């Protein structure tokens, strides 16, 4: 099973997770910029975080044979804090970089006016930088938030096939399917979706524009939920090719629209001591104090 986890916050995970993910078949990930649990209080905190997504985390993933990409944005939660909004001015520098495969996570948290302004501006930035968009849908009042999200996407003029609307469930999938946007599902241990509900949605609606992620982060979550979904698909009667379509090809097709995927060499046979000769974009910082 070959897996691309299209939404996972590896910054919050350990190297043990990387090792387990690799051995279960995960060969590539996208890490969206998001909230860190502890609120940021200034723009510099965002810049250091973005630098870390592009540098240290890419290197750490590479040590375990996993290609790491990221999305960059001001997240919906912190879009309400006037001390953070100025980061919008700096986003263009980051959106020009290699390995940045979308603008995200953008969207709504509490559906405030400030969130909507920041969301709309970042949809414009996606157009200006020729990048797809990853949209977070709110935990509270999800259906209304998803509906308003789709209105803003339509108003932005972005082609719907360049927009992935994430964290969907049975109650929100239909309107996103009708919009032409990609449909993302975060499979969690307890909340959001589980792998069996996920399989039922795939059985009902087919595999087109369907994206499954673990959204694993610093909370109760499981970086192997993509794998669990693949197994549940096989048990249900889906073929190995179907699993590959959902867990590899679909995310590659969606993020590939950026032209910035880092999958240009093989995705096998590396390990903690591997080197990455001849492929500059995969080479992040070296471990500190490395002597021998």
């Amino acid at each position, binding site marked *: 099973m070959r897996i691309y986890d299209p939404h996972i916050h590896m910054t919050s995970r350990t190297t043990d997770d990387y090792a387990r993910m690799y051995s279960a078949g995960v060969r590539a990930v996208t890490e969206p910029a998001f909230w860190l649990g502890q609120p940021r209080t200034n723009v510099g905190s965002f810049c250091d975080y973005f630098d870390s997504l592009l540098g240290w985390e890419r290197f750490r993933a590479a040590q375990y044979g996993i290609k790491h990409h990221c999305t960059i944005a001001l997240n919906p939660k912190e879009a309400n804090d006037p001390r953070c909004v100025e980061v919008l001015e700096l986003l263009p520098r980051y959106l020009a*970089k290699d390995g940045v495969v979308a603008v995200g996570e953008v969207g709504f948290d509490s559906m405030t006016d400030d969130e909507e302004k920041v969301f709309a501006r970042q949809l414009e930035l996606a157009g200006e930088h020729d990048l797809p968009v990853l949209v977070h849908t709110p935990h509270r009042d999800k259906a209304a938030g998803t509906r308003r999200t789709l209105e803003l996407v339509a108003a932005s003029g972005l082609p719907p096939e360049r927009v992935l609307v994430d964290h969907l469930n049975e109650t929100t999938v239909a309107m996103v399917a009708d919009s032409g946007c990609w449909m993302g599902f975060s499979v969690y241990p307890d909340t959001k979706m589980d792998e069996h509900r996920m399989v039922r949605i795939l059985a009902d609606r087919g595999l087109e524009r369907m994206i499954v992620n673990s959204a694993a982060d610093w909370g109760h979550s499981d970086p192997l939920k993509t794998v669990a979904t693949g197994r549940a698909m096989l048990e249900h009667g889906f073929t190995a090719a179907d699993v590959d379509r959902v867990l590899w090809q679909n995310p590659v097709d969606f993020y590939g629209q950026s032209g910035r995927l880092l999958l240009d060499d093989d995705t096998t046979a590396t390990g903690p001591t591997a080197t990455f000769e001849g492929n500059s*974009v995969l080479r992040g910082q070296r471990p*500190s104090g490395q*002597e021998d």
Partner: protein
Amino acid sequence: MNTMIDHAAPHLDDAARARLAELVEELSAQPSKISGVFPAVGRTVARGPSDPADPDGLRTPRLEDEARAVLLQAVAAAWRSEPDRFATELAALYRFGDADEKRGVLRALPTLNIGTSGLPIVADALRTNDLRLIAAAMGPYAAEHLDGDSWRQGVLKCLFVGVPLEAVADLHRRTDAELARMVADYAAERGAAGRSVPSDAWLVLNHGDAGAEKEN
């Protein structure tokens, strides 16, 4: 313009040169666009080692380093009458750069006629543990402008983290007895711990009469 490209980017093929020439033209008209053009150079112009034996670009500039140097020279020329503006943007390109972009700035420093104003960039790179940045920081700009203490610490750090001393510009000219002493002490410490000494340490240890001085 083509002379500049020939001089600063000798390893680019014709197609890459043509793309680079277009970007130079664009930046000459609108130098502020460098903030978006500079990060994208690996995708828009070229990427890869100029010497296959040096894939990380520790001893030699990579193709994207050569292209980035040309773009910075074009922006410096366009902002000739506003050197502060250029210095501010150069610092921002480094600050917001990923490791490849930072290395591009470091490699371009000696070509930009900025006097000593690039030294904070060199100092930042030497604080990292990133071999690519340390190697690029110890190039001709550091050889010309870095003070003795910082330069010696830079050479020692190269040995410590594994940057080949071939990456250090003007090593022979700037090596002095103090550096030889520091490297001798480092070698002694390694020996005491039963560890090997990088073979290129001898490039410094053989300097002048350092060995004799230690005997006294």
